[in-house]
């Protein structure tokens, strides 16, 4: 599918150029100006050129489905811009193309991944996995013939030039099985030492690149079962054969030393009868496994529940606290004759202007238990575990998010307060309502009507407020009793990120996507409910 994107993506890149193709509109036919037509042809030609290039690449890599999609998309783009009708499409196409690829398609793709075991050890197809297993577990054949070898280099890659015991000279590299070669120079023992076009490594270089040389495996033939040639010292090579031998008919691996048989376990791995699995597996569809795992695996279930609850609490409390403080300050400052108002305002909204990812990091320095400014300087060397105690860490995260978010609410509330009609307030005062009553019964409801949509989007934003959590605490302190790197301040999105890309615990794209789907659902439900709520609010006040 990705291929599709390519074509169009280039399309959209091209379109932002100087002129959109002027196409006559139905009612009033304006003749195309010459410049417009030329611009249109040039841009479209550019896009098509890129599309054709991509199609060639797709043919080369035999991605037929994507090729087909790519052809269709290119055709549609040409149709949109070459016909004289359909003006709106001409303006919408570039943006919609990116939207479809990087917003809609990736959501669909996430859903697909959520139903697979995609991740470390399950990265590609079964055929790839078999080949990789054969290549990885190799052992020197006990009675291997000795090959006189020298290491050659060409374009940064290493090659092995060997002379077989029978005198045949062969050359090969990591991705290039042994082939017959003609030696251009020979060494003192009569073995081949150099080949035209390649550089022979001298002894000093051999030592330097020892590790690379040890990793050099030259397949003897195209069939991985034949094994490969390897050298430890750069002068003698031996035959290595897979420790695990693959039987294509039975679809099993057999350990050549112990005789253990590994079969396709049906879970994307080869497993022995006792349950031990080979490390390299492949990607399969696992149905709802990732979801059931999330809700039943004791390693995951408890932490996940806590994370979900905290995500809601964090988002709600963040909205409530920033709104309360922002509104309070907006009311305090809603006086035209307050001296220094402008300066206060500018200084107060500085946190909003400060890049968000930096805020978390800066605060993590302030709150650091050992060296942080707050403990060391303000509290005179106290050791308060601001970021490492489960409860205090949550409080810290909320305070930092309040710091980040209240200037925004302040700006927004100020704007909304100033746009409130004055006559309503005056009428209420005439009727004898006190200030508190006016605020409670008149100002606040009116404010909420205009601000509820903003509060909702603020909730949605905080629900996925990755930066503040990840930069401040990294999600910690870690939960006990789980092997996952999840902790007390993790929200769903940081959990997704850590499971998919975290260091140490291995990447699990399938599980991460399943959790992302859960976020999708929650966000969808929350926004559906809240939009309905907004509507009813408006109707009440109307």
């Amino acid at each position, binding site marked *: 599918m990705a291929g599709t994107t390519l074509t169009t993506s280039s399309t959209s890149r091209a379109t932002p150029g100087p002129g959109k193709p*002027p196409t006559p509109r139905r009612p009033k036919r304006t003749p195309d100006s010459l410049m417009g037509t030329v611009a249109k042809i040039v841009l479209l030609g550019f896009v098509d050129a890129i599309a054709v290039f991509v199609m060639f690449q797709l043919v080369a890599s035999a991605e037929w489905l994507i090729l087909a999609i790519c052809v269709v998309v290119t055709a549609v783009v040409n149709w949109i811009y070459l016909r004289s009708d359909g003006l709106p499409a001409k303006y919408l196409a570039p*943006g919609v193309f990116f939207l479809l690829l990087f917003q809609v398609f990736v*959501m669909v793709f996430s859903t697909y991944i959520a139903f697979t075991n995609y991740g470390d050890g399950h990265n590609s197809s079964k055929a790839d996995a078999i080949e990789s297993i054969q290549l990885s577990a190799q052992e020197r054949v006990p009675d291997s013939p000795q090959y006189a070898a020298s290491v050659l280099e060409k374009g940064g890659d290493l090659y092995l030039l060997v002379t077989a015991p029978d005198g045949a000279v062969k050359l090969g590299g990591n991705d290039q099985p042994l082939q017959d070669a003609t030696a251009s120079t020979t060494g003192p023992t009569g073995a081949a030492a150099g080949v035209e076009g390649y550089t022979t490594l001298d002894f000093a270089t051999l030592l330097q690149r020892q590790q690379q040389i040890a990793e050099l495996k030259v397949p003897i033939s195209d069939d991985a079962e034949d094994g490969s040639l390897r050298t430890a010292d750069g002068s003698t090579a031996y035959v290595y054969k897979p420790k695990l031998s693959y039987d294509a008919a039975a679809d099993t691996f057999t350990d050549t030393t112990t005789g253990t048989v590994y079969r396709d376990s049906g879970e994307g791995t080869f497993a022995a009868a006792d349950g031990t699995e080979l490390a390299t597996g492949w990607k399969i569809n696992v149905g709802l496994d990732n979801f059931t795992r999330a809700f039943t695996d004791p390693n995951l279930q408890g932490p996940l529940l806590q994370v979900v609850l905290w995500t809601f609490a964090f988002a709600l409390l963040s909205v409530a606290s920033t709104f*309360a403080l922002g509104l309070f300050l907006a009311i305090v400052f809603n006086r035209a004759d307050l001296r220094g108002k402008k300066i206060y305002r500018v200084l107060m*909204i500085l946190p909003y202007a400060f890049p968000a*990812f*930096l805020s978390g990091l*800066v605060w993590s320095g302030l709150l650091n238990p050992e060296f942080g*400014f707050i403990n060391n300087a303000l509290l005179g060397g106290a050791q308060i575990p601001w970021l490492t105690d489960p409860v205090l860490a949550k409080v810290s995260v909320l305070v930092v998010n309040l710091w980040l978010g209240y200037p925004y609410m302040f700006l*927004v509330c100020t704007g909304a307060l100033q746009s409130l009609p004055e006559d309503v307030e005056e009428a209420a005062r005439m009727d004898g309502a006190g200030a508190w009553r006016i605020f409670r019964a008149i100002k606040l409801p009116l404010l909420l009507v205009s601000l509820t949509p903003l509060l909702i989007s603020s909730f949605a934003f905080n629900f996925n407020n990755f930066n503040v959590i990840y930069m401040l605490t990294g999600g910690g302190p870690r939960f006990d009793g789980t092997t996952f790197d999840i902790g007390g301040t993790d929200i769903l999105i940081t959990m997704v990120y850590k499971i998919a890309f975290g260091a140490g615990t291995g990447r699990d794209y399938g599980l991460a996507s399943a959790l992302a789907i859960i976020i999708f659902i929650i966000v969808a439900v929350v926004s559906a409910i809240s939009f309905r709520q907004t509507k009813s609010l408006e109707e009440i006040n109307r």
Partner: protein
Amino acid sequence: MSTSTMTAPASGAGHDAGTPVPLQRRRSFGRWFADKGWRHIVAILATVFSVFPLLYVLSAALNPDGTMAGASTLFTHFGWGNFEALFANQERPFGRWFANTLLIGLVTSALTVFLGAMAAYAFSRMRFAGRRVGLLTLLLLQMFPQLLTVVAIFLLLNFLGDIIPAIGLGSSLGLIMVYLGGALGVNTYLMYGFFNTVPLSLDEAARIDGASHVQVFFKIILPLVTPILAVVGLLAFIAISSEFVIASVVLTDPESQTLAVGLYSYVAQQRSENWGVFAAGAVLAAIPVMALFLFLQRYITTGLTAGGVKG
């Protein structure tokens, strides 16, 4: 809690409105305080809360003693050591990060504005089947931010890179394209509202004079909606220059990273030791954004409230 405090200011205001003002100068301190003085105290407290962390990072950047423990007094030592160390570090090329961030941010925000404006023009000026549905769909889609799909984006770019290396993992171009996926959505909505305020009669007059729709778009509409273009462009730039999740996954090589990814790597492991250098980098990274923000503050505020009210 804010609500309970509210009474005081409001009642103060009430008094003020009720009494004639000639005696203002002679007012007692108590009256002044009840009316305005307490507001100054609140303002000063809020200002301190806002500014203090920023002063702290500035002080840490200027403190040549480089560690977090050394930064426990404000503005006592001065030196440029951290800044020198920042630019001298070959493994973490701060200058490159800065340039990358500017490049990615500027290109993306310019294209975002352009794509969004084109879409808003279509929605605002043309009537076509699916127009309402299209607008609603955009509103719906922007509820699901791209970072939720970071895994799929990573795998997609991984795949695309095999076909066209120029847009695969590690390339700025690929990242820009991903960001453009979010170019419509809320931006179009903001712009759509603003485009609607430009009277249709202007278009019609131009049409009658023989202008094509392209000329109407570029020569009539765009000049009239410059404020919203500035707001959208600026908000997009700020959002993208702070974006961490997708950038950290796509940009793997230090040479191609942005400030967000790079500066995080400074303190990801040894937070305390690299603190001074990080602070120096943070100050340099923040200054342009903050300057731009304060410079265009008025526009942003208008844009925010307009967007909020329109929903």
